[in-house]
C-alpha cells in the first residue's frame, strides 16, 4: 500500500449567484448536442424557476408561476422543451419552453401542504407517471401525464400511523415493467408500493425521525435514505420484495436534506444541514469527500446528465442563495 497524503477537498468548479433566495431544487438538462448549451434549472424560495446557462454561468430565463411561493421540485419532460415545477402554492405547473416560449400550459393543483417532492417516471413515449402527495395527509396519488388521470391512490392501512409522505421515488425494474414507488414517511419508515395493485409490499422502519430524502438504485435493488438524524441508512430489496437494512452510516453532524445517486451508480451525494456536501462510494458507502463551501443548510444535490462521463457535474443549492457546481470523480 502506498501511503500518500490525502488530497485536500476540491473547490467548486464555479458558483452560480443571483437567485436572491434560498435554492430548494435543481435539475440539469445537459444531454442536448451543440449548439445548445447545457442548462440547469433551479427553483428557489421566492417562487422563481431560473434557467442557468452553464456556458456563460448566467441566468438565461426566469419563470415566475407560483405567486412568490417557494418552488421545491422541477423536472423536465420531452427534453428541455417542457418543464414541471411544483410550488408551495399547491400547484404543479407544466411549462412550455420550446422556441423561446415560457408559459404555463397546464397545471395540477394539490391539496397537500407538505414538503414532499413529486416523482416522475417515463412510461412510454409521451406518457409519464407522476407521484405526488394526495389530499389526505397520509396518502400518495399517482397520476398519468399528460392526461392527468389518476392511476391509483396509495393509502396505508388504518392504524399504520405513518404520518405524511416525505419523499417519493418512482421506479420500474425494467423498461415497460410494472412500476413501483418507494416512499419515505414522517415516522421514519420507507415503504415499497406496488402501483398496479395499489398495495404495500414491504415496510422498513429505518429511521427514528422523518425520512427527508431517499434514492433507489433499481439495478442493484439497493437504496439509501437520510433523515434529520446523524445516520444514512442503506437498505436493499430482496427477491421476495422485502426491504432490509443493509448498513447504516454514521455522520458527523445530523440532518440530511437530500441524497442522490449518480446515474452511473458509482457515487452518491448528500446535502447536509451542516452546510456540507458529502460524497460516498455507492458500492460500500466509503466516504470520499466532504465539500465545505456553503455557509447555510444545503437543500438539494443533483448530478448532471451529460452524455460524456468526463463532463458530469454535481450541483448543490443552499439556503445561502448560492448554487455550487462541482466536478468530481469523472475520470472513469
Amino acid at each position: 500500500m502506498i501511503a500518500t497524503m490525502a488530497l485536500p477537498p476540491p473547490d467548486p468548479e464555479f458558483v452560480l449567484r443571483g437567485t436572491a433566495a434560498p435554492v430548494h431544487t435543481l435539475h440539469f438538462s445537459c444531454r442536448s448536442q451543440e449548439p445548445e448549451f447545457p442548462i440547469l434549472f433551479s427553483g428557489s424560495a421566492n417562487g422563481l424557476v431560473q434557467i442557468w446557462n452553464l456556458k456563460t454561468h448566467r441566468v438565461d430565463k426566469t419563470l415566475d408561476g407560483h405567486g412568490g411561493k417557494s418552488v421545491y421540485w422541477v423536472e423536465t419532460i420531452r427534453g428541455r422543451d417542457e418543464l414541471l415545477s411544483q410550488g408551495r402554492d399547491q400547484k404543479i405547473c407544466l411549462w412550455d419552453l420550446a422556441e423561446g416560449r415560457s408559459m404555463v400550459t397546464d397545471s395540477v393543483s394539490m391539496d397537500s401542504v407538505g414538503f414532499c417532492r413529486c416523482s416522475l417516471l417515463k412510461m412510454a413515449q409521451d406518457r409519464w407517471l407522476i407521484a405526488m402527495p394526495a389530499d389526505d395527509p397520509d396518502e400518495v396519488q399517482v397520476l398519468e401525464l399528460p392526461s392527468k388521470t389518476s392511476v391509483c391512490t396509495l393509502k396505508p392501512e388504518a392504524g399504520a400511523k405513518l404520518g405524511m409522505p416525505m419523499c417519493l421515488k418512482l421506479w420500474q425494474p425494467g423498461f415497460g415493467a410494472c412500476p413501483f414507488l418507494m416512499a419515505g414517511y414522517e415516522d421514519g419508515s420507507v415503504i415499497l408500493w406496488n402501483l398496479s395493485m395499489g398495495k404495500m409490499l414491504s415496510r422498513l422502519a429505518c429511521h427514528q425521525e422523518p425520512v427527508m430524502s431517499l434514492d433507489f438504485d433499481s439495478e442493484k435493488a439497493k437504496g439509501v435514505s437520510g433523515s434529520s438524524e446523524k445516520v444514512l441508512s442503506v437498505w436493499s430489496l430482496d427477491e421476495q420484495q422485502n426491504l432490509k437494512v443493509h448498513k447504516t452510516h454514521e455522520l458527523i453532524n445530523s440532518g440530511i436534506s437530500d441524497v442522490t445517486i449518480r446515474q452511473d451508480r458509482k457515487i452518491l451525494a448528500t446535502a447536509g444541514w451542516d452546510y456540507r456536501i458529502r460524497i460516498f462510494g455507492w458500492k460500500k458507502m466509503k466516504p470520499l469527500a466532504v465539500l465545505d463551501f456553503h455557509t447555510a443548510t444545503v437543500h438539494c444535490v443533483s448530478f448532471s446528465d451529460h452524455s460524456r462521463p468526463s463532463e458530469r457535474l454535481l450541483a448543490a443549492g443552499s439556503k445561502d442563495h448560492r448554487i455550487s457546481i462541482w466536478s468530481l470523480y469523472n475520470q472513469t
Partner: protein
Amino acid sequence: MWEVCQQHAQAASPELQETLLNKVVCLPDHLSNKLRGENLPIFLPQNYFPLLGTEIIQVLQRISDSLRGGLDCSISFVSQVLGKVCVHGRQKEILSTLVPCLTDLTKSDCIWQRMCWRLVECVPDRWMEAVVCGFVQAVPGADVLSRLLGNLVVKNKKAQFVVTQKLLLLQYSCPTAMLQNVLGYLALDNSRRFLLIKVLQELMETWASSSAVKHSPVEQQLYISKAILICLSHLKDVEIDSHRQELFTCVMEGMKCHLDSNLPRIRCLGMIVAESISSRINTDGPILKFQYEEDDETRELKSLLTQMPSPPSVISPPDEGRKDSPSAVTEAESKPDRKPVAAAYAVSEEGSDSELDSDDDFIPYDMSADKELKKTKAPLYIRDCIEVLTGPEDVEKWEATMRVLETLIQRNTAATQEVSVELAKVLLHLEEKIYIDDFMELRQKALVAVTVTDPVPVAQYLTSQFYSLNYSLRQRMDILDVLALAAQELSRPKAPGKSKLSSVQTPYIQILPGSDSSKDWRRIVDERIRSKTRRFAKGQSQVELVCAPNKFSSVAGHFFFPLIQNFDRPLVTFDLLGDDHFVLGRLAHTLAILLYFAVNTVAAAAMGKALLEFVWALRFHTDSYVRQGLLSCVSSMLLSVPSDRLLEDVIEELVETQAWLADVAEKDPDGDCRRLALQNLLLMENLKTKLEAAPS
C-alpha cells in the same frame, strides 16, 4: 611448562608458587619486553589469554578426574592464576574461553559445579572484584552466573560488597543485561534473596535521597531506576508485603524530589519507578498513575518489570526462585498469545477490505476538516472578544472566540492597540473554563499576537506582572514564553513568500507550554554556534537574505531590562532564588533568547553586560537546568554583542567567565552543561582568533 604447573597445582612451596604465578600471568609482558618486534603471535595478549583459558580447563579436567578417583586436590593455584589475570585487565580474553566451557561442563555434573565454586571462592580477596566483574560481564544469563558462582556472595564478604554495592551503587556503566545478570543471580537462590531485598532497600534509599537526585548525573539515576525495576520484577508478593511500609515511605520521598527536578527526564524516571512500585505494593487499593510521554526509554524501563529474567532455554537448578513473580511471568507468556491473534485479525480485515475496494478506484479526499458544526458565530471585533472572554459563560461562543482571536488581533492592528494592555490582562488571567484541546496554545498565540502588535505597553505590562504577587508559576512561565516568542516574531523579517529564507536566518523555536524540555533551547544554541562558525569558515558565501528592519531592535530594552531587574528580590509567593528555581531556569533561557534576537541592535551591548552580571551572580546554582540557562546566556552574549564592545566593556568579566566555563566543562555532573560550556569556550576561542586576525 604446563606439566610443571599442573604438578604444582597439587602441592608446592609458597615461594615457588608465587614466582610461578607471576611468570605465567606476566609471560606476554616479559616476552614482549624481551623480544620487542620479534614477538611470536601466540604470545600476544589477545591470543595468549584464551590459550591460558583452555589450559585452565584442561587442568580442571585433570583435577576433576583425580577427584573422581578419590584423590583430594587443591584448586587454589588455578584460582590465583585466574585472579591475577583478571586483575591485570584481561578478564575478557580469558573468560571468553573459560565461561562457555564451564557453562557446558557444569550443566549436569555436580563435581564440576563444586569445582567451579571452589575455583572462584579460592581467588584471593584482593583479586576478587576483578574476577566477579568479569564473570558478571561474560555470562549469558543469571542462571549460568548462579551455577558458576554458587553462593559466593554469601560466603565471601568482598564478593558481596562488589555485587551488592559496587556494581549497583558506585558506578553506572554496566549495560542493562549485566544488571539483570547480577540481580537475577541474587534472586535465584533462597539463601541469597535476603541480599536482593537489602539491595532494593539501598537502591531505594539512593533513589529517594534528594541530594542524590540533585547531584548525580541523569545516567546514574537511570541506572538505579533500572536496577530498582529489575529488583521489583524478581521479588515475590510476600517479600514485598513484609517491606511495604518501608517501600511506601521511600516512594513518597523519592517522588517528591524527583517531581521537584527541573529535568524532564528525571521527572519521568521518578514517575515510572513510583508507578511501578505502587502497583506492586498496592495490589488491591488505588495505584499511582502519572501522565508522561511514552518514548523508547520509558518503554524499556517498563519492559524490565515484565520480562523474563533469564533465557528459558537453559535448565536451571531445582531450587531456583523462578516462580517468584507470577504476574510478570503470566503477562510475559500471555502477551505473545494475544498479539498474533490481533495481528491476524487486523491483517484479514485489511485484506478483505482492500479486496472489495479494489474496483472502487475512487481516492478519497482529505476529510479531516469534517468536524462537528458550531452553531455560534465567532465575534468579529476585538472588543467583542474581550466581552465574551470576561462575560458570562457561553461555552461555544467562548471557544469560537479563542479560535479566532489571534487572526483578529493580527488583522486589526489599530483596534488592538487601543485595548492591547487590557486584552493582555484578560488573556493572562484567562482560565480554561471549558476543555479545549489546544487552549494553552491558543492563548499563547493570542498573547504573542498582542505583544507583537503593540510591543512597548504590553511588554511593560507583562514584565511588571512577572515580578508581582499572586501569579502562579505557570502564569509566570507563560509570560516568559510569550516574551520570547514575541521577540522572535518581531525580529523576523516579514516579507511575503520569504518564510523559507527567514526560517534559515532565525531558527524556529517551539515553546509549547507542555514542553519543558531544554531541547529547544539546546537546538537554538547549536544553531547559533553553527551559524557562527559557518560565517568564519565560508565567509560571504551565503545568499544575501531579503532585508527588513528588525522591529525588535527599538523595543528590545522594554523586553529585557525589566525582566533582569528584580530576580534577587523574593516576594511572599515567589522566590526565584529559592524554591522556584525552575522559573529561574526558564528566565535565564528567556533572557538568552531575548539577547539573541536583539543581535545588531544598539541595546545589545548593555544587555550583554547586564546578562553577564546576572550569570556571574548565579553561576554556582545547584540546579542543572538553571546552569544550562546561564550557559545559554553566555553563548547568546558572545554571539549578539559586537566583539569590540565585549573587549571594551567586559573584558575582565569575560576572563573570569572563561575560567568558570573551563571549570564547568570539566567538572559539572550534567552532560549538557559540560557540552554547553565547551561550546562557549569554543566561541570564545573563535572570538580570540578573529581578533588576532583582524588588523588592529
